[in-house]
Structure formats: structure tokens, C-alpha cells
């Protein structure tokens, strides 16, 4: 059995300790290294938002079990994540309104998925006392945002706003060993946005002309935000944009990101088929080749119809099939030498928005799902060790 480090890493595999999370390449494989020097795979849970437990149908459960945010974080979130083999609090904001009809097409009609207002703050993460990530919303250009706003990256406004973001967020976390690093924008529209908008410098450009200018725009974007992050926090990783892998990523952006960002992060959902899972593996491997960075799948998930969300139909019939799919989807990439983590999409099932989670709308885990997740997660370090030893 694996002996876990204080952060949930592999205490049996050691690297030099620096007091902060970092990445290291050793014997042809990438590792996250925790502050004490243990090898670490970031197994995260995304969208951990308490408003999912304050609907009329579950407010009484919130009051009885938790009553306040600190108690919920300690007795709910941290307890659940640890007992299911997760070691990272992922991006905490939740999808709470808006739909996409019967199929999600990133190039089709624009969608507008509302997201919860406030991510967790520094005090919340101190309460949780486990590894976590943060996000800097450098541009409001997410592919799920029906009203994107592309700001001129060459403007004084962009520079001042990046400094504000870094000053206001990084400052409070710069000394925290539990922080893994900073994501930037969730699925930013580096390919043209479905709503039709684009960066001012790119409007009207196509093909090579667009790609050429895109490299300049993206370079300025990454250079500006990372310069400000480093000014307030020289210690932590920059995990970068959470690219929309299912839509595609322009190579110009990956080349622009390369000098400034430490990890290639990507959202990539799979269909419940072997072909789709292998497609993910091939895409991630290709993007890893271009960037030379270790890889985190920053957002993947699955769903099946439930009592309050019968419309969440996929190729999966029930929670047990979701559990099988978790193992198969992550199993398709877990042994790759570039993978350093994955963050799963959805904690408590809400209504009106995402409509899926690993806990039902009454705060009970879907046992058929989480039992498979737990078995897979706790074995991940042994798997890595066997692979290295073999």
C-alpha cells in the first residue's frame, strides 16, 4: 500500500523539497512534487459550491449537517474528498444556470452558462487545509460565456487589470504551501467564439493571417499576466489557461504559452467509447509534444439521468456505468509519462444548471460511482511505482 505524504502524495518517492509545489522531469516521466518533496498526482474535484445545498429541496439538510461554510468545508468537502481518494480542491465556481439543448456544439449556436459568483477565498482554503488551485479570470472569453468581452491585450487597461488580479489574489496565497498554482481562463475562445466576437486585432483575419497575429496577441496575454503574478508570488506554478480540448487549440497559442506557463492544462470530456478515450490520449500527447509541458486534464466528467435531472442523457444509463467510465476514461491517460493530474467535474448535483455530480441533490454520494473512483484513486501511486520499477 502507498504511504501518503501530508499533502496526499507518494511518500515513498522523494525529490528535493522546496516548500512549494513544483514540477520535475525524472527518468522520462513528469511529476508534480509536493512541498515536502513527495511525488504527487493532483486528483481534484471541481465546482465545489455551497449554493448547491441551499435550494428549497435541500436547505434543511444544509442546516442540519453543516449550518455554516466552515463546517461544510471541514465535515463535508474535505471529508468527502479524502475518503474518495481526491487530494485537490479544484476550480470551485459552479455552473448554475443556462442550458445547451440536446447537444453541445462549440462551433454552433452560442450558449450562455451562468457560473457562481464568488470562488473560495484564502480563509476557506485555510479551513480546508489541503492542496488547491486558483483561477485568474484574465479575460471573460469562455466558450460557455454567451456574452464574451475580448479586451485589447495591448491596452493600459489590460495591464492595470492584470496587476489588480495578481495584487488582489496572488498576494494572499503567495506563502501558502497548499496552493499548487494558478489557472487562468476556463476554456478561453482562442479559436473564434460562437458568439461571433474576437480580439480587436484578430477581427476579419482568417487562416494563416489570423494565426500569425494570434501568436502575437497570445504572447502579450501570457507575458502580461505572468509578469504580474510573479511580481506578487514568485513561488507557485502557473497552470495556464484550461484550454477547450474538445473544440481544439491553435498551435500558435500553444507556442505563445510555452515560455510563460509551467503546465499544459486542458478541459477534455470523452464519450463513453474506447475510440473517444483514445482520441483524448492522442490529442493530449500531441499538445504535450508541442508545448513540452506536463499535462493536467483540468475538467472532465460524465453524467446519467437522475430523479431531478432526467434530461441529462448520455451513453451512460446509471451511476455504476459512470463509475466504469471514470476508470476507463482516466485509465486511458493515467500511465502516460506526461500526465500529472486530473480534476473531476462536479461535486453536488444541482438543478437549473449543471445537473450532475458525485453526490445527489440531497447530499448523499452516489455509492456505485464513488466506490469505483475511490479504488482507482488510491491505487494511482502504486500503479506509477510498478510502472517505474517494471
Amino acid at each position, binding site marked *: 500500500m502507498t504511504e501518503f505524504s501530508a499533502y496526499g502524495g507518494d511518500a515513498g518517492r522523494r525529490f528535493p523539497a522546496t516548500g512549494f509545489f513544483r514540477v520535475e522531469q525524472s527518468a522520462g516521466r513528469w511529476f508534480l512534487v509536493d512541498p515536502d518533496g513527495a511525488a504527487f498526482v493532483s486528483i481534484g474535484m471541481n465546482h465545489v459550491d455551497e*449554493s448547491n445545498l*441551499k*435550494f*428549497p429541496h435541500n*436547505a434543511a439538510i444544509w442546516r442540519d449537517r453543516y449550518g455554516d*461554510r466552515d463546517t461544510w468545508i471541514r465535515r463535508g468537502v474535505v471529508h468527502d474528498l479524502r475518503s474518495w481518494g481526491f487530494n485537490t480542491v479544484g476550480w470551485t465556481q459552479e455552473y*448554475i*444556470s*443556462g*442550458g445547451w439543448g440536446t447537444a453541445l456544439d462549440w462551433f454552433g449556436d452560442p450558449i*450562455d452558462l*451562468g457560473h*457562481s*459568483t*464568488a470562488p473560495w*477565498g*484564502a*480563509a476557506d482554503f485555510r479551513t480546508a487545509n489541503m492542496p488547491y488551485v486558483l483561477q485568474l479570470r484574465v479575460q*471573460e472569453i469562455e466558450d460557455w460565456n454567451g*456574452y464574451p*468581452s475580448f*479586451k485589447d491585450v495591448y*491596452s*493600459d*487597461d489590460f495591464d*492595470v*487589470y492584470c496587476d*489588480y488580479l495578481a*495584487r*488582489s489574489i496572488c*498576494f*494572499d496565497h503567495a506563502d501558502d504551501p497548499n496552493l499548487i498554482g494558478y489557472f487562468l481562463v476556463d476554456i478561453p475562445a482562442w479559436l473564434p467564439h460562437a458568439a461571433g466576437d474576437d480580439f480587436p486585432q484578430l477581427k476579419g483575419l482568417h487562416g494563416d493571417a489570423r494565426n500569425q497575429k494570434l501568436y502575437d496577441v497570445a504572447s502579450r496575454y501570457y507575458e502580461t499576466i505572468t509578469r504580474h503574478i510573479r*511580481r*506578487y508570488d514568485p513561488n507557485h506554478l502557473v497552470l495556464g489557461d484550461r484550454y477547450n480540448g474538445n473544440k481544439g487549440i491553435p498551435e500558435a497559442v500553444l507556442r505563445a504559452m510555452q515560455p510563460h506557463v509551467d503546465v499544459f492544462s486542458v478541459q477534455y470530456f470523452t464519450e463513453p467509447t474506447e475510440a473517444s478515450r483514445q482520441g483524448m490520449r492522442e490529442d493530449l500527447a500531441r499538445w504535450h509534444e508541442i508545448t513540452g509541458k506536463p499535462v493536467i486534464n483540468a475538467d472532465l466528467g460524465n453524467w446519467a439521468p437522475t430523479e431531478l435531472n432526467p434530461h441529462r442523457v448520455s451513453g451512460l444509463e446509471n451511476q455504476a456505468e459512470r463509475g466504469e467510465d471514470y476508470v476507463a476514461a482516466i485509465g486511458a491517460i493515467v500511465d502516460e509519462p506526461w500526465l500529472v493530474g486530473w480534476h473531476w467535474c462536479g461535486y453536488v448535483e444541482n438543478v*437549473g*444548471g449543471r445537473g450532475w455530480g458525485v453526490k445527489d441533490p440531497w447530499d448523499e454520494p452516489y455509492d456505485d460511482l464513488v466506490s469505483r473512483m475511490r479504488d482507482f484513486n488510491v491505487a494511482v501511486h502504486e500503479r506509477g511505482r510498478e510502472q517505474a520499477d517494471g
Partner: protein
Amino acid sequence: MAERDGFDRYGGDLRTQLAATGFFRTEKSDSGWRLVTPEGHPFFIVGIAHVDDSALKYAESIDVYRERYGSRSSWISDCVVASLRGWGFNALAWTKQWVSPQMRHSPEWTPDEYRGSGFPYIPHIDFLSFERWNQQAVYKDVFGTDFEDWCDYQARYWCAPLADDPNLVGYAYTARPHWDIARFREVTPSLEGLDDHEALRRVVRRYYQVTHDAIRRYDPDHLIFGDLVEGADTLPTGPSEPPPVVFTEMGEYVDVLSVNWYHPFDIMRESLDAWQRLCDKPVFLSDSAFVAPNDLLTRDDPLFEGGWEKLRVQDEKERGEAYVEMVEKAYASGYVVGWGWCSFMQNKVRKYGLKSRFDEPYECTEIMQDFNSHLYANLDAAVSKRSHRTEGAAR
């Protein structure tokens, strides 16, 4: 809240006892509108808007933050609340701060932060970001279920954790909304065939109804301050006064008419008289200030263009005196129930506040403190002085 002489724990006027309901409420009598504290004492809001700690985290001021506070919770209690109490202010009147040249704002404090402050507060709920100053303004179909789901989330986020907090004065919404019916038409199929007046009437009514119902689903008790309605001619973009239908339609769904207008009271008075009659609500002046030149702000700074020159005063002494005059005149109207002074701490974008970005209070706060320490006696004296003057003029 430590009680000061003559004030209840919320900053209410101990000399008069009215019905206590455990929550802030409004009351209309022969002499006009007033707010009443949870303990049943008359209350006039002297609040502060725009309170953001990134102002104290610049390279040149970061050591001040570290040495004096070191954490956000300590900054809230030992910097913000301690300063406001010291100066005799009695409410946080929203906290978002202007942080980039193109008017982007920092996030609002969280419900836990407001509640934890132990100080009266009026938080802002982002139901729809259609501010005139917002270059990313968004218009949505307020008749759609997406909008209902979004409003329900906002109410879950804000009202569920705050519904039982007596320090919550009430909920406010969007600052200076731009009721642009053409933009609403672009996203609202059901407006087809209606003339602009009727289309706007329906949009306004539906917007206030959905937002009101979402709040009331989770909180039956607290006041609703609604949008911070934009006053006339406050921006270089030109006349911005909302059409009368906004006031008549909102009346059923808000408790207070909040007005965001950067002018001295005498210039606003005629419009305020008319608006408060249209919706039959008391008025909260939610966000304005008087500004004196300082180390970041010269007399000819572009900030003072487009009507804002009316807010410019010569120095900190005039600034304090302008505060007193505005509070006195507003109170004497009989329908204004408070004022949110614009900005706690200077940053490099807004450039003005009651404290510098090195955490040093400007001298105007001494005059404000003098006045606020006997707020209600001073207000009564001002009214009586005013009525003597009126009688004298009549004779």
C-alpha cells in the same frame, strides 16, 4: 457594535422609540420617510461605498498592509470597521471598487465577510450587469427561465446565509443600469410588435418581479433597495435619466429608491422630488462624493470633466464641509434616508477616498467625525434652522 452615546448598536437614534421588528424597516409618517433599526430607533444611513483591500497592496504600500493587518479578516475589522466607527459612519453601502481605466470593478465582498464585519451593510446582487459605465454590459431575456435560474442562484448565494442577520439593512442591485430597450429587444423575442414604451414597461416590471420573488423565496424580512438608479447628466456619455416608467413599475417590488448621482443636492432635488413621488418610496443616495486634489489627482484631472467638476472642492476642509451640507439638505427633504459616500481608500485608478493608499485618513474625516458624533441632534438642528429660514422668508 459598541454603543456610542445616544446611539443604539446599529447607529440608530436612541431618543425616539418606535416599533422594533428585529430587522431594518422603513416608516412613513406626516413628517416624511425614515428608516428604523431592528431595535426600533430612527436611522439615517451615513455609509461608505467601494471598500477594497487591493488598494493597500501596491509595492509602495504593501508593508503597511503586512505590518498593520496581515490578513483580509484583520483588514476588515481593524482597518475598515474600526475606521468607519471612529469617523461615526454607520453602514457599508456596497464594496466593489473601480480598479482599471475602463471601469472594471473588484468583486463584491462575500456574504460571510459582510456578516462577519458585525456592521450594518447593504450588499449588491448582480442580477444583470447592464450598467451604463460597463463596456461589457449584458442584456438578457428577463422572461426566460435562464434568467429565473440565475436570479434564484443569486438569492441562494446572498439571501440564504443572511436572512436572519439583523445587521443586513437591505439588498441593492445594479449600479446605474442603462434601460436600453433596443438592446433588450435584441435578446427578447416576446417584445416583437410592441412599441418601445410598452416593451420597456414589460421588461422593467418583469425584471423587478423576478428579482424580488427570488429574494423573497429565501428572505421574507429584509428591505430591497433595488437598482442604483442613474441620475441625469452624470456621465460624458450624455443624458442618462431613466424614463418615468422605470419608477412607476419598480414601486411594487422595492422598498427604497436608490439613486446614484454625483451632484450636489440642490441640483438633484427637483428630479428626486418627482421620482420618489412616482414610486412612493424613500430615497437612498447610494454613491457620491466630494473630491479635493491630492497626490494622484490634480485640479485639471480628466476625472473632473463631464459634470464631475461640480464635485470638486478646494481642499480637505471644504470636502468635510460639503459632506455636512449634503447630509443636512438630504435629511431635510423628508424623504432621503441616507447617503453612501464614494470610496473608502484611494487607489491609483479612482484616486480618491477617505484614506490614502498608505492608510492615512484625509483631514476631511475630522469634520465628518465631529458631525457624525452627534448626527441626529445635528440633523434636527439643521431642519429647525431651515424651517426658521423658510418662515423668515415667508414673512
